[in-house]
């Protein structure tokens, strides 16, 4: 009996906490649909509806091209990091060769390296090849894989039965065939996890676009939202309804992807724990 009462109590607490977590989203969406003078009235259902805010925002800022830029950069970042990390992870998982453990230790060690430590020389590299004000630096480093994803994918590749590869070797398959035709199809769920994680990381990134992008036409959505909030927010014209609509446009695509790929998000996070 008491176990059941406890369970109901827990359920009530969790529901109350959930309201705290969801309310800011509801507030944001509702406020983005209000006229300027009612933004802060903290009423959930707008007294006066102003869906025109979403028309105004396309007029005052090139939001559509920012959206396209974000999509292009995020897809490039996710694709490159997934393929490159998988290639490297397979190298560590399948082969036995001198220097393997030392190199893998190095991969793990670089996970601790803060991005800030290399930020300035990396900028100078892109500057010296004339790409410092383009979108290329936002994703091109992903061509070389990323330590955490290499670690994650190596775990999955190690889980595949070795006989599978040996049989294929006897049949004359090349190493690349082992990777591309056997390992990759069997680890597709893990690859999706990596791609989605990077998609989210790239979509949210503010620092790199701040460093590299000068031309507003090249902005990604987070950089664009920052520009909108500089122009129309606290220090600017105080047109909060524009800033709010911009926030919604930045957030919603990620929420949609989250709902589509929820299972993979949760799997990916849970795998992080096993590493601990």
């Amino acid at each position, binding site marked *: 009996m008491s176990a059941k009462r*406890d369970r109901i109590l827990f359920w009530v607490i969790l529901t109350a906490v959930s309201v705290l977590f969801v309310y800011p989203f509801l507030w944001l969406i509702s406020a983005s649909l209000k006229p300027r003078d009612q933004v802060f009235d903290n009423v959930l259902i707008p007294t006066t509806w102003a869906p025109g805010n979403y028309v105004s925002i396309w007029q005052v800022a090139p939001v559509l091209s920012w959206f396209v830029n974000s999509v292009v950069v995020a897809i490039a970042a996710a694709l490159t990091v997934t393929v490159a990390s998988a290639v490297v992870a397979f190298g560590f998982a399948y082969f036995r*060769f001198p220097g393997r453990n030392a190199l893998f230790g190095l991969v793990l060690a670089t996970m601790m390296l803060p*991005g800030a430590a290399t*930020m300035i020389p990396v*900028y100078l590299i892109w500057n010296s090849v004339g790409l410092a004000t383009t979108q290329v630096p936002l994703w091109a480093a992903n061509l070389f894989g990323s330590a955490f994803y290499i670690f994650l994918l190596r775990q999955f590749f190690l889980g595949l039965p070795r006989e599978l590869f040996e049989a294929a070797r006897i049949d004359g398959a090349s190493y690349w065939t082992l990777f591309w035709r056997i390992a990759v199809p069997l680890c597709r769920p893990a690859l999706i996890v990596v791609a989605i994680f990077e998609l989210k990381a790239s979509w949210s990134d*503010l620092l790199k676009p701040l460093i590299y992008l000068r031309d507003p036409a090249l902005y990604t959505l987070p950089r664009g939202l920052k520009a909108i909030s500089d122009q129309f927010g606290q*220090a600017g014209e105080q047109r909060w309804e524009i800033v709010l609509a911009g926030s919604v446009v930045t957030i919603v695509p990620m929420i949609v992807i989250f709902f589509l790929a929820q299972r993979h998000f949760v799997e990916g996070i849970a795998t*992080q*724990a096993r590493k601990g």
Partner: protein
Amino acid sequence: MSTVLPEQGSRIRSWVTGFRRRETLAAYGFLSPWIIGFLVFMAAPMIASLVLSLTDYDALRPANFVGMSNYQQLLLDPKVRVSLANTLIYTVMMVPGTMVIALALALLLAKVGRRSVGFFRTVFYLPVVTPKVAVGVLFLLLFNGQVGLINSALSLVGIHGPQWSTDPLWVKPGLVLMHLWAVGGTVVIYLAALKNVPRDLYEAATIDGASAWQRFRRVTLPMISGALFFTFIVETIAGLQTFDEAYAAFYGSAASATYSSDAALFYLIYLFQQAFQFLHLGYASAMAWLLFIVIIVITAIQVRLSRRFVYYEGR
């Protein structure tokens, strides 16, 4: 290297023949993307940044060697001190806060039925997928001292809320609260760890007469200590590199002019300003190295601590 001991010689020989093998060549072929990336985007930049930190490079004129003077200036720069203090204070509040609240929520989730877990987990995870720049913008609105939602809600229960976004004393607690909104990622990690605790351990403890608190303290905590430690390190490193939400809320071309207090000046924000707004690339490189050293020292202390507190099964 004129005399090589016999056994050493054979070891070197086997290493060299190991390299000649087709398999080894193929392996390094697979690793080559990472090796190139490591050399070009990590090793070389780390060395370059060390060299830059000894110069007065400003991207316009050729660099002059200035020795340790950037590092001396670091120690005297009041903004370095303020931003480092801000970052540490924030991290010290944020990390334990995240861990305690995430653990409490994960324990609650572990106790309710399977069907509701999925629903709550989704709700808790939504803020995690929200870009931090939007979180920073939301912060200014929700935590506005006069008309913000937080203070309006507080006034309902008779509390006169502080000026979260302008009072230097309340800016960091406000940012911590905003960060706690995205606690869901840690909740999911803890929940996965809790599910891996063998049930028979609890049954054995109950038979031995352990109270609920003792079961938590002696069974649950040791069994999930690996996950606790992992989030401890990851959250600390993330806290020390806080940028997006604070910069979005308080800095930028226009906003920096209105907000004069340095209460939200995080170390990475000041580093970014020095490097890319004032183009003090030499000085900023010294700042980057200081941050790198701070992170290494703190992580090393944490790893030391973990040897005492983390329980690894099978060791």
